[in-house]
């Protein structure tokens, strides 16, 4: 996870300023993610349609986000469904639109391999984002992630997402609550430690 540096005309200036951005160490939550060369430069291993599952249009299933992202309410991490969770439904539901994509789940179940989803939403390694605090404060998933239930295959972030920019977080934290005080702390160590 090294940063790449431009050694150019602005090299010295950049180097100085760049120091401010390099502190995220290679901190990986164990077991849940990995860095690999992109096999699917623009796509997911399975063309998983969020809208088909969570959308509320006719013919869509209107599932709760947390049915699959099961730990969002009690953990810092929202969780991604196990392959067996997918298979739990899909062994009975072959899928009417893209049965060949659904069939891939069976391959993963049979081989015992995890599905190597491409990660779309991520905050920097030096940011600790506790999902459960936000959900328990009454936020909707969509407030940060955008209307994911209306998207098909996720290959890019919703334009509403501003998670690369701390100002976006702080803006919300600063909003006054009923008593007129900021609704959440803007102290650095709330997120950075």
């Amino acid at each position, binding site marked *: 996870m090294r*940063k*790449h*540096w*431009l050694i150019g005309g*602005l090299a010295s200036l*950049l180097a*100085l*300023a*760049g*120091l*401010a*951005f*390099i*502190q*995220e*160490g*290679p*901190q*990986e*939550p*164990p*077991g*849940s*993610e*990995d*860095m*690999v*060369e*992109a096999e699917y*430069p623009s796509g997911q291993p399975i063309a998983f349609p969020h809208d088909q599952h969570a959308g509320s249009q006719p013919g869509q299933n209107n599932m709760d986000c947390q049915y699959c992202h099961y*730990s969002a309410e*009690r*953990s*810092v991490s929202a*969780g*991604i469904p*196990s*392959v*067996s969770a997918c298979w739990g439904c899909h062994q009975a539901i072959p899928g009417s639109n893209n049965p060949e994509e659904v069939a891939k789940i069976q391959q*993963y*179940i049979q081989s015992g*391999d*995890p*599905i*190597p*989803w*491409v*990660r779309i939403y991520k905050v920097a*390694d*030096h940011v*600790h984002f*506790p*999902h459960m605090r936000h959900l*328990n404060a009454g936020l909707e998933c969509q407030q940060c992630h955008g209307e994911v239930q209306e998207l098909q295959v996720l290959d890019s972030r919703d334009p509403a997402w501003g998670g690369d920019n701390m100002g976006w977080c702080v803006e919300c934290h600063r909003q006054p609550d009923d008593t007129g005080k900021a609704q959440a*702390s803007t*102290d*650095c*160590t709330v997120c*950075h*430690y």
Partner: protein
Amino acid sequence: MAENKSMKDGIKRRDFLRVLGVSGAGATLTGCSTEKVERLLPYVVAPDDITPGVSTWYTTVCGGCSAQCGMWVRTREGRAIKVEGNPNHPVSEGGLCAKGHATLQHLYHPDRFPGPMIRDGSELRQVTWEEAESLLVARLGSAQNPMLISGRMGPSLNKLVDEFIEGIGGVRVSYDAISDAPLAEAARIVYGTAGIPQYDLENARFLLSFGNDFIETGSSPVAHNKGFARMSSVDAAGSKGRFVYLGPRLSLTGLNADKWIPIRPGTEAAVALAMAAVIAGDDPQAAGPYSNVLQAYNPQVAAQVAGVTEDVIFELAEDFVSEAPTLALGPGVGAHHRGATAANIAVMILNHVAGNVGRTVLYDAPVNGAVSAYADIEATVSAMASGESEVVMVHGANPVYSMPPQAGFAEAFAQVPFKVSFASALDETSEMADLILPDRHFLEAWGDSSPLAGVISVQQPVMQPVPHFESKQTGDVLLSVANGLSGQGDAATFYDYLQEHHRSAYDEADGDFEDAWQELLRTGMADTRREEVRALELQSPEIALSFEVPTFDAPGDLTLLVHPSSRFGAGEFSNSPWLQELPDPVSKIVWHSWLEMNPHTAELRGIHEGDIVTVTSPHGSLEVPVWLYPGIREDVVALAMGGGHTGMGRYADDKGVNALRLLPSTSEQPSGALVTTVTSVTVIPTGENRRLATVEGSSGDQHDRLIAPAVALADLGHAGDDEHEEGGHEELRELQGVGGFIPVPADGGAPTAFPLEGSRHGLYADAQEGPRWAMAIDLDKCTGCSACVTACQAENNVPWVGEEQVLMGRDMNWVRIERFYEQVDATQAGDLDVRFLPMICQHCGNAPCETVCPVFATYHTPEGLNAQVYNRCVGTRYCANNCPYKVRVFNWYRYTDEVPEPLNWQWNPDVTVRDNGVMEKCSFCVQRIREVQNRAALEGGREVRDHEVVPACEQSCPAEAIVFGNIRDPNARITQVSSSERTYRVLEDLNTQPAVNYLKKVTFHEVASVGHEE
């Protein structure tokens, strides 16, 4: 804030950075050819007991040493990331030592064997388990006199091994590199009991150690450290127990004594018997069958032998009766000389005549410590050399390294036609093996332990085996090999065997076994000790005993003490970079060995600190740098074990010297233990000098600064009524007297009083709501054991930097244990005053570091933390330069990138792994604060409870010296403790307003009023 103000040239700082950030991003896109994506890998089947992002804790047993402390292991997403003491456990009561923490590094150690290996000429080749096991079956099937050399193991595995060895008609030899055999043998001779007696340190009021280093070595360091701290710290009634250390060298334990009597090596028996004789007085039967022994000893004789005055021994004897309950401890594993059993017997007689047996010395629940006789393994050497044993297996021991080379073990072992090792990682013995069957680490394996008779703990695997290593539990290997030999197909696993072992001992009247088993796994232990105390009679010794001063091999003008290291034991922990970089609690040296020598001795010989000397005994010689130590007799030098590995791995090899090279292979009689205080040496300078890799900056001197003050016991409760209490504020008062230091508010108002109102806990104290985190460290309890240093390193992803970097002052530990000598005299008995002070970021309310940071990377949080925001830090290091406590450390290189796989699996996912160019320091374990606050918020937004946030250092502290909490809560423990009259803050004259309150050490002697000293 300054960052919102326009810079003079009109560009806002943020805009400046933003512009550069954009160009940086563009550069990234054009500068790299393959874009990488990050993968999210789900479980195939989600385990029931794991929630991603939430820790799961398991109980188990520490496999580090024979103490077998209870452990809690924190796992995240199926990986063990931190080990802690189990508070339910009757031995360790929640404490854990530095070695215990470092066992985690052995779990993920890159020098573990990747799988079973077979020797192919000079190379080892990895094979499958089937192949490896069938090879062992074939060799055992035809072997004459197979032998197993085994270290310590739990009761179930022990039973299985016995059955296995009986089945193959072999011989089993137990071997512990460090053994308490003389103590066990003495107890057997004197009372006819088995095992090691248990000591109730906590309830003694006067403790006497005859060279017993119970804090760092011995049968149960954590339990003894805890008991000692409880005994020796001042209680609510203003009373504290006293500790006198007798021995030629102050170990870490010795440094905690109130008085040091520097007796000659090997003279413990004379002093103990003389004391017993004084106590027995005219009673001819006081010592039963040993009464005639006492008649030969009196203080005059003993004083002459030991090199102290008679008065000292009379006084000790009187105090030993008048300050009851008392407790005397005989020479421990660091002081085994040729008379070690006799010396332990002498101390037992002393305890007996003082009425301590059944009171502070308990034989009812013997300690199952390491008591194997060195003589047994010595005897195997000839059996191997003669080719008698065709197969030799080694489990849990490294005799090639841990026996003196004089024993010839390596040469004899090389003669064995087929050598098998069960070592999970490389060491000097497994290096020679023909077949390696790597055992699992204890955190991946089933097992059990019985640290005391009547106490059972189950060691359960806390995670799936580390996938880099195809290891297999030795119990399972033995069962499988036994099947292979017998041709039967018994499918039982070692887990079945273990459970059956406990089921058969279980009384079904106490309920369902399965329920009891689950409860045993959940709590980590079952305590079935009886509450009865047996009266013990002294038994006539079956053999003739000599209490004479033992002989030391000549020639040589200095006696050599070789003692186990408090960090490496006998060398089994040397391959841990955490322990290598943990400053030795006594010398503060890291990574290399040193020879301890009294400064006066060195001066007479023209030796300076760091001079490399040749140490020569009749048995060998080696070169090592000298470290000058006032806590060692002038006629003695000392070397620690654990250095000089040659085949253990990347962090151990070529670090320091192996002190055993100077020793003969001699066992003590009658116990058969290896003698380590056995020879004299000559010390000749080579003419070379090196800088010692030490983290100590001031040679143990406080230089008249108010860093670690003390208060005399007699002065407690008299605050303010003598001039000593002035200490600490003299400079301030002086300055205030001339009007030179009266803060003037920024609004131009009148000068205010000092300290500023509301600044008791910091400049921001009264302006904010919520908690104000603070810490109290009781220096009367702290023993300097350094467990907190390693606990912190494990919790906070603190890197190690290596010897070269330490030499450049770049050590990175967040906790530094300062050690100051106030009063140390190696020439005569006298008061001893050595002070330990754990120095961490003081989280100053008025922090000098904060005001000099140009980018606001360090600032004060509303909760009273001095925060360090890594992603803001640009590495100017101004903060470190301005910190009067020297607690800020800087990442000069990508130390964390160099951590080899899978050692990096240990990293705590809740803490950012810092990279180069970033300053860091103690955060008060802010991640633990956040974890508890998050939990409290989920539980209906309740308040955080007192003692709910426990930083890693406090959790680990065996001495219970550290208290953390919200000091704004008047009922919190931290507030109660901090309100002690002993409370002070380090360098408080600087008006830094630290959030760390120290409680002064309490001494029995008057404290000299040097400088600011109280």
